[in-house]
């Protein structure tokens, strides 16, 4: 498909793709914001949820935080490589980020399997409902981001659409930031 003239204009001075990704994040922020605001209000009204929160495995949560932060770091390196015009290197760093995403999901699966097999399911009580819903919604974003990075890396390896490396990176940092909010709220707060 030929790119329309509309796509090539930049009346605001901000590249079109970057503008779009920020608006996408704005719409995502209110989704997660709404969910977390509900959780916070409930949590304040239910001190007894602390008992349930105590069951969550902070060590696993911390490990996952570390994995996700590292994957954000490789996303930054990919962006840096793309700015230098080195598509191959950018693609390689994006693959590292995807590996980070997979590792995160793997650890998360183990954690959920462990909790569910010990009887802590989404219907156990309000805390566990929010725990699985919020982390599940976040995990869906991790999966979406990993898939998007796969497509971008494929193009970048051939030196095409290098500006997308930055865009997918911005999205990935957002996914990371959401987890930075989830980790203390679901794991650390007792």
């Amino acid at each position: 498909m030929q790119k329309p003239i509309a796509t090539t204009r930049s009346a605001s001075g901000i590249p079109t793709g970057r503008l779009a990704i920020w608006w996408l994040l704005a719409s995502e922020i209110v989704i997660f914001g709404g969910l977390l605001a509900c959780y916070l209000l409930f949590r304040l009204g239910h001190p007894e949820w602390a008992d349930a929160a105590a069951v969550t495995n902070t060590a696993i949560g911390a490990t996952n935080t570390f994995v996700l932060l590292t994957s954000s770091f490789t996303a930054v390196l990919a962006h840096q490589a793309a700015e230098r015009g080195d598509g191959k290197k950018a693609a390689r760093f994006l693959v590292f980020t995807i590996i980070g995403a997979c590792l995160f999901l793997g650890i998360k699966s183990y954690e959920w399997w462990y909790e569910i097999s010990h009887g802590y399911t989404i219907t156990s009580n309000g805390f566990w409902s929010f725990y699985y819903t919020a982390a599940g919604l976040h995990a869906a974003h991790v999966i979406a981001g990993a898939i998007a990075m796969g497509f971008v890396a494929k193009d970048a390896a051939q030196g095409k659409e290098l500006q997308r490396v930055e865009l997918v990176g911005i999205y990935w940092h957002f996914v990371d930031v959401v987890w930075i909010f989830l980790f203390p709220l679901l794991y650390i707060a007792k």
Partner: protein
Amino acid sequence: MAQATTAPVQDTHGHDTHGHHDEGWFKKYFWSTDHKMIAKQYLWTSIFMAVVGGLMAYVFRMQLAFPGIEVPGFGLVSPGEYNALITNHGSIMIFWVAMPMLIAAWGNFLIPLMIGADDMVFPRINRLSFQIFLISAILILASLFVQGGGFGGAWTSYPPLSANPEYNLTGLGASIWLIAVALEFVAFLLGGINFIVTLMNSRAPGMKAYDIPVTVWMIVIASILFMLSVGPLIAGAIMLLFDQTLNTGFYDPARGGDPILWQHLFWFFGHPEVYVVLLPAIGFVIDIIATFARKKLFGYKIMVYTAVATAVLSFFVWAHHQFIAGIDPRMANVFTVTTLLISVPIAELLFVIIATLYGGSIKFTTPMLWALSFVATFLIGGVTGIFLGASGSDIYLHDTYFVLAHFHYTFFPIAIIGGFAAFTYWFPKMFGTMLDETLGKIHFWGTVIPFQFIFIPLFALGLGGQHRRIYNFQNFPELASMQPLRVTATLALIVMILFQLVFFWNLFRSLRSKEKAPMNPWKANTLEWTTPSPPPHGNWPPDQMPKVYRGPYEYSVPDRDTDYWPQNEPS
């Protein structure tokens, strides 16, 4: 060295170029990325859904006026069917008629044309947005035919009624309804991002912020408003879906949940949603009125600021839907004040329109009639809202037919009158032929007059204490005597529906007509009138894309031969 990331211009590449060669039927009508085709897809889908929603109203109005009769064309209406009909009438009219028609169809058609671009910035995301929307429309229609019937828990879908299949008796219908609404939100988020970025980046050279036609401003402000208000409800919908299907207890007080939470999430979106559909309609009305008053728009900048103020204020009024839901009376005071405040910018918008008319040389064309009736009808809707925004009187009026009549007096001008205003005004540009003025005026009076006869009786019924969502009022002796009012409303509805046949006849005639519409039949200034009707692929030849030299409302400028001054004409 940020070349790769900051350069917005990319080489065209790849082999999948498409354009002026002949495309297959499927590709042209179902796989097109042309904003004009996508606009038509949205338009036809929303007109189809409007017919469905209108016929639903016919069926349940018949049941209310003549309880227990075999409704011609439908048969006996059972209580369950009645619930499903009123629920889906509301849902369809808001989510599958008002939004796709006002925002998606006209936004897609007008934004690129009015700002002098050849398409949206993301044509394929645009196509994806319509496809998701189409799936959601098919889902909501399919949900009427599943086991247990369509969802019957009202369009507001309050738990625990909506969360528990044992209460609403339509477990499957409820879940499909929720998924359809969520998909519809996704479609409009994608479309909204496209609209906003297109306006911000793809304006014609020379088009500054205050040269943008008000219609485009309004659609984009509405898209931002939608985007920022719908998020919490998406989260809430996930929670409700889990309550329905996984047996969680987010909204179940017995298990630590809170049903009022849904009301907050729903109305935090639901009230801004009113302005999401109102602003585009106001935009159409303003463009039409400036054109046919042949006068410069009074207070262009005020208009834009007012729209932004309305959008911001609309985030702080939602709890006026919950005055009797057990919220703190002190909170009710706060929300009364904010609600009454929001009538200030709305009144300002109407005054700007009236001031534009003052001293103009008004031409009573069909689109102008629709635009003027918008002002008159919406005014009644706005004024009756004061009674509901004030918590004291709302306690009596809450959940009665007064509320119902009030919001139909707002949504009917917005979706139906605004929709017809836009349709009759831009029809020549979209389809390349003119609509018949006489038939158009017959249809106009045949729609607007019966409308008053439907809803003025319902105001009276509401004041008489008649509650909403009741299957048969004959079971309430103190309400039974008001039956003539119900019959009047139903008969007026049937008259209104019959007059829509005039519209479809007019539409059919014009679509088959061989007479070509001129490029600028209304002598208007905005850029869409500077290209042939209908515009060719790409809207303008690539080397003749328009440049903008002035604002969109330079009508009757002294010392000029013509009373209009197109935006792209060098001075």
